[in-house]
């Protein structure tokens, strides 16, 4: 192949499977150098593999940059522990198609989700802090139980329905069961079983979702830039100019379209559903925002492409 390109993996596959696709030993060697982070592991959905220009054994600056980005994406998507990795990958599988067209929509969704998970995490921390205050004698037992009851009610509200997704908390009947401790152990041993694990899990999940948003938007913009670069490096001058008009048009018109459609859909969802709880707001925000983001991302892309093409035809080929 004449130039380097990045490949976004969409299914779990072994590294060697991709490597074997390359026929020449030089290409395989370069593939290994550009993808050192994937060599000893399966390649998961969402991870990026870099195929270099096999006409040269030297890595260009562009190839190195792509390799660093692939590493960053791998780190952003994959947590340190296996369960978190699995959960992130599961989420990625669900969201991947939306990423392609509606990074803004998914940005809205994951932004809210991050905020929601952050709130759950803070409530868990508050529960622990209340407990510590009681243990150190700052709070009386009655006050502690009263405060804990309020915090449990808050947590319960935040974990209704789909609010539980991504928290790692099972759908048990009570908050205490969900958190994995009984009233007895909570009061006498002072051990919030799995507490640290939960908090770490939530923090990681929120961070991954945040990174997912960044990666989604970056991929959208990056894809446009690569289209331009591709056209300018292999095409004629007019193809290059046309690609600039079209890709810039897609971005300038497509992103505002997706943002506006997302907002309008959320507003419409709230008006029609007239929710009565925070959980419903979250559902409307995520479902409507993501769906509209996807639709407008795709429609907005066609819209931007058309306008870019129109501008190119009127001014670009003069």
């Amino acid at each position: 192949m004449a130039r380097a390109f990045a490949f976004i993996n969409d299914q779990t596959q072994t590294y060697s499977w991709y490597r074997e696709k390359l026929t020449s030993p030089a290409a395989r060697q370069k593939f290994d150098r550009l993808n050192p982070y994937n060599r000893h592991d399966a390649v998961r959905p969402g991870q990026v593999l870099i195929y270099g220009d096999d006409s040269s054994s030297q890595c260009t600056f562009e190839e190195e940059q792509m390799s660093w980005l692939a590493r960053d994406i791998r780190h952003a998507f994959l947590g340190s522990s296996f369960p978190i990795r699995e959960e992130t990958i599961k989420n990625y599988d669900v969201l991947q198609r939306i990423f392609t067209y509606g990074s803004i929509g998914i940005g809205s969704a994951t932004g809210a989700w991050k905020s929601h998970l952050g709130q759950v995490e803070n409530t868990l921390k508050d529960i622990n802090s209340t407990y510590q205050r009681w243990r150190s004698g700052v709070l009386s037992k009655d006050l502690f139980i009263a405060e804990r009851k309020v915090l449990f009610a808050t947590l319960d509200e935040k974990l209704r329905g789909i609010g539980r997704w991504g928290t790692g908390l099972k759908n048990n009947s009570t908050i205490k069961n969900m958190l994995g401790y009984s009233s007895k152990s909570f009061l006498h041993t002072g051990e919030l079983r799995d507490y640290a694990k939960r908090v770490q899990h939530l923090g990681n999940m929120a961070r991954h979702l945040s990174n997912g948003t960044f990666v989604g938007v970056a991929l959208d913009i990056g894809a446009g830039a690569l289209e331009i670069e591709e056209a300018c490096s292999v095409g004629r001058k007019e193809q290059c100019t046309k690609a600039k008009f079209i890709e810039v048009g897609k971005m300038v018109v497509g992103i505002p379209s997706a943002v506006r459609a997302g907002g309008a859909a959320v507003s419409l969802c709230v008006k029609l559903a007239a929710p009565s709880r925070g959980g419903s707001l979250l559902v409307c925000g995520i479902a409507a925002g993501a769906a509209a983001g996807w639709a407008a991302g795709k429609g907005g892309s066609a819209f931007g492409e058309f306008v870019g093409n129109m501008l190119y035809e009127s001014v670009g080929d003069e």
Partner: protein
Amino acid sequence: MNEEFLKWVVFASAVLVVADFLVSLYVNHYILPQVEAQLKNCKLVADTKALWGTTGLLGKMQRSAMVYAALTSTRRMREKGMVDIDEVSRVSRRHRLWICVPMWVGCGSLVAAFIALALLGRLW
């Protein structure tokens, strides 16, 4: 319908969508906090702010959409206890226009553009 006319509808809509986006940036940064401050007791607005408050531009877009819903579907929201009707009625006309007009212009432009693109066979 005249193809040239449809093309110009798409072009004009694109200009409006981009202009609307820029106006929305201003509204979300300067006007939205003022309106939200007037709707402190509206559950819809307060919950949305708590949920999306820290998420930058996209969060502000969501909050703006909820304030729009509170201002334009007040009766329905009141039935669910999501808004305080007194607070909503105290929101000034100027603030209402800042919130509602960009939403109408943006949505109207998008609908017009998508219809024109569909008629031109260029939507999907």
